[in-house]
């Protein structure tokens, strides 16, 4: 089968770091990612089934892996060589795997929790359904890997064949297109983040960044919370248009955040001239960028005792936390998904909520372009420059891949 394989090659990894520091996304050219012919992964247990990816999205975390920006934090919870790709819509490929309604399409929930790892009894988090918080992430039947797409045993979505545990698969309703279905996994992240933000009714929420995750978080905040004002920072015109469509009340450009938040919240600013520090600020700031600058902005924009939610993957950053201390801010992370408690107290699987949102907000339109595996360099370059090229989500289209070897 054909697969984009990410091997442990320190020299190439170093080259990717250097290249990507000049042109984002160029890690695909010189880095350890390569298109190879490999054997399909073996099934590690009875509940594992083969699947054939149809579409597989390129996520921001994939890009930072390819460009060598990922934190070394991931080293012990990743196993090499792996096939990236965890936003996957696939066909069941097993002999007797047809769903009752005849559909074969599934969406992968990539987190490899206790159930997938064959650990019984499961850890407390998994028992509660909070898969993203699994405490056995590098134990059990399969090699370490926090998700499918970072584990050497499971294969990944950027290939023509992979395996999945039955518990990871969600049936795709027939009415949902492949494009919409591939958005379910990132949407689940956004739904989880929106519900983790703890937005109370009428509060002011600022979302930094209007990439895929930022736009989806906006949509999720609009659907599952009740903010008074929802402001989105968007750099590119297409992002601004989408942000407005997906529910932002105020769309602003980078550089305007402090001024806009000051006006929205009737805050004062310290000193005259360019605004550096607000006395008040937004109730909740959602950082969907994950850079040092974005975190510094978030710290400046949140009101005293406000909440900052990190949805974008931050990595190693250097920020001044004096404000966090003095203003008693909450700095909260939001990773993956599992089970959510809604405002009315009911508990639902995040993926179920994500399916609803994708359908309701027509999120399939966010898939801007698809590429065959062979053009993976162009695909990754496109994804790395998605905003400026007027795109949101880039995905690999595997529906027409020819199998050369079997």
């Amino acid at each position, binding site marked *: 089968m054909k697969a984009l394989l990410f091997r442990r090659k320190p020299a190439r990894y170093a080259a990717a770091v250097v290249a990507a520091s000049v042109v984002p996304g160029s890690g695909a050219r010189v880095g350890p990612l390569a298109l190879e012919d490999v054997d399909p992964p073996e099934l590690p247990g009875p509940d594992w089934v083969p699947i054939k990816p149809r579409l597989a999205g390129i996520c921001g975390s994939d890009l930072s892996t390819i460009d060598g920006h990922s934190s070394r934090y991931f080293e012990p919870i990743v196993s090499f060589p792996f096939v990236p790709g965890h936003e996957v819509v696939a066909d069941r490929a097993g002999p007797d795997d047809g769903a009752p309604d005849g559909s074969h399409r599934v969406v992968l929930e990539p987190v490899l929790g206790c159930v997938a790892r064959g650990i019984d009894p499961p850890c407390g988090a998994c028992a509660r359904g909070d898969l993203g918080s699994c405490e056995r992430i590098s134990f059990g039947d399969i090699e370490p890997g926090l998700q499918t797409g970072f584990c050497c045993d499971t294969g990944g979505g950027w290939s023509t064949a992979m395996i999945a545990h039955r518990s990871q698969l969600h049936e795709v309703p027939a009415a949902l297109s492949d494009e919409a279905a591939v958005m379910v996994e990132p949407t689940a992240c956004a739904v989880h983040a929106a519900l983790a933000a703890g937005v109370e009714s009428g509060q002011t929420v600022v979302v930094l960044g209007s990439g895929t995750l930022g736009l989806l978080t906006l949509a999720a905040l609009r659907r599952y919370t009740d903010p008074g004002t929802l402001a989105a920072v968007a750099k590119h015109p297409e992002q601004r248009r989408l942000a407005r469509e997906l529910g932002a009340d*105020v769309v*602003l*450009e980078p550089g*305007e955040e402090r*001024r*806009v938040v*000051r*006006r929205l919240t*009737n*805050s*004062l*600013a310290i000193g*005259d*001239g*360019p605004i550096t520090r607000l006395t008040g600020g937004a109730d909740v700031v959602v950082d969907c960028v994950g850079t040092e600058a974005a975190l510094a902005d978030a710290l400046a924009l949140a009101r005293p005792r406000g909440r900052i939610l990190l949805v974008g993957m931050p990595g190693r950053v250097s920020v001044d936390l004096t404000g966090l201390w003095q203003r008693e801010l909450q700095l909260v992370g939001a990773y993956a998904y599992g089970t959510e408690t809604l405002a009315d107290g009911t508990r639902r699987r995040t993926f179920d909520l994500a399916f609803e949102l994708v359908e309701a907000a027509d999120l399939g339109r966010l898939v801007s372009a698809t590429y065959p595996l062979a053009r993976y360099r162009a695909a990754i370059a496109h994804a790395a420059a998605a905003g400026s090229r007027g795109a949101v989500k880039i995905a690999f289209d595997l529906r027409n891949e020819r199998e050369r070897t079997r």
Partner: protein
Amino acid sequence: MPRPGFVLEVDRSTPPILFHHGEGFRLEKLPAGRSRVLYPAEPLPALRDPEGAIRHALANPMGDSEPLSALLFPGMKLTIAFDDISLPLPPMRRPDIRQRVIEQVLDLAAAAGVDDVMLIAALALHRRMTEAELRHAVGDRVYEAFAPHGLLVNHDAEDPDNLAFLGTTDQGEEVEINKRAAESDLIVYVNINLVSMDGGWKSTATGLASYRSLRHHHNVRTMRHSRSFMDRHSSELHHANWRMGKVLRDAGVKVFQIETTMNNDVFGAEGPMSVLQKREWEWSAKDRATFLAMKTGLDRLPMRARRRIFQSWLAPHQMTSVQAGEVEAVHELTTANVYAQHLVPVEGQTDILTMGLPYICPYNVNSIMNPILVMCLGLGYFFNLYKGRPPVREGGVLILSHPTTWEFHPVHHPSYIDFFEQVLSETTDPEVIERDFERSFAEDEWYRHLYRTSYAYHGVHPFYMWYWGSHALAHLGRVIIVGGDVRAVRRLGFQPASTLQDALEMASDVVGRDATITHVHNPPILMADVS
């Protein structure tokens, strides 16, 4: 004898015409046969003995007023109000007219043994003046005699403890002015009447007023009914101020008005800038060389340096008349004196009006001309410099030339930035802006704080800039800015063009191929008297 202003018909032999272009210039060839250029009059002669003229005016007041010396008595409360940094433009060389007048007023007050004197910069909602600017306006002697004791202050339109409500006009307009001024036995108001809009009751009723009072005439309705606000008798803005003046008078506020006019000698007869004041066909070899050197040099300098060069220019313009006494009588003569310098008779309206906007307007002295001010200068001030009818027909096109950079002075214009980013991105319709946004800006605590303690224009001031242009916005079919920052021009709701030729092509979509063109060669200031 200075030559009067005139209208030049452009033919094939007409040289390229000078367009001011912010901190730079353009030379533009206008189409022959259908273009004309309005040239301002040459500077009127200055008063030979300004000190003597002031003395004479104070001793021989106009209208129903006693000489100033007779109005002063020991133990009285005297307030001297004076025009702020927005006048004159550009700032004049020392000694400033205000200094000359105020020193003589104070000398009379000293002779009368007046102890309780306060000087107030009548800045309405403008930014406060800095120490250097106050020193320049009133002179070091006056500054040092009063400022250290807190007796030379900037008017504060947001100080609840220092505003006095004096009543409402017959049309329900509230009149609220500076309390110290209202409670004085005499207000002496020292004006510099650069253009015919300045002075009269507008001095006290606007310069010393609060937001509560100003909003009654600084709004879209008033501005759309002021045709133009440079012509008092056709200006709703002035009617409102005159109504307020009546309330002031009835409330016992006594104003001794001193108005001064100046000639339009803004670039001087000598020096590198003098070429800007000459007619193109009269440029000598030296003038041409100076102009080329200046233009080439400026084009190569960074914006900051250019701005510094232009903002440091002190104009040699001088006083041409001074009159004092009762407000309305004084203002009639003042207006006639202003018209003597500015009015240029023009026959008929044109299809396309072109203007080169200079580097300065009333609100960016020692500051940055931001896009909102470009709009205000072009569509507010220059467009309204007419008497009778606008020089451009209804539905015609206005072409401005200005770099229109997306730049704001963060200290002086904080609310402008928010207005530009957050209001104009939503709408450019003055009525919608007034309805949906004015209140939140006017009552914003932070803007109020900066206006009162820093050097910021009031939060509502950018709205007034937009209202100032609302008459023009309603009148014009299209506005095109030549050589402006594309994004900023679009944000203003106008169309960007890279050259005048392009702009004229774009204009032909609206007014046709053979449209007539009129270029206003301003500054030096001129006012079109359109018949």
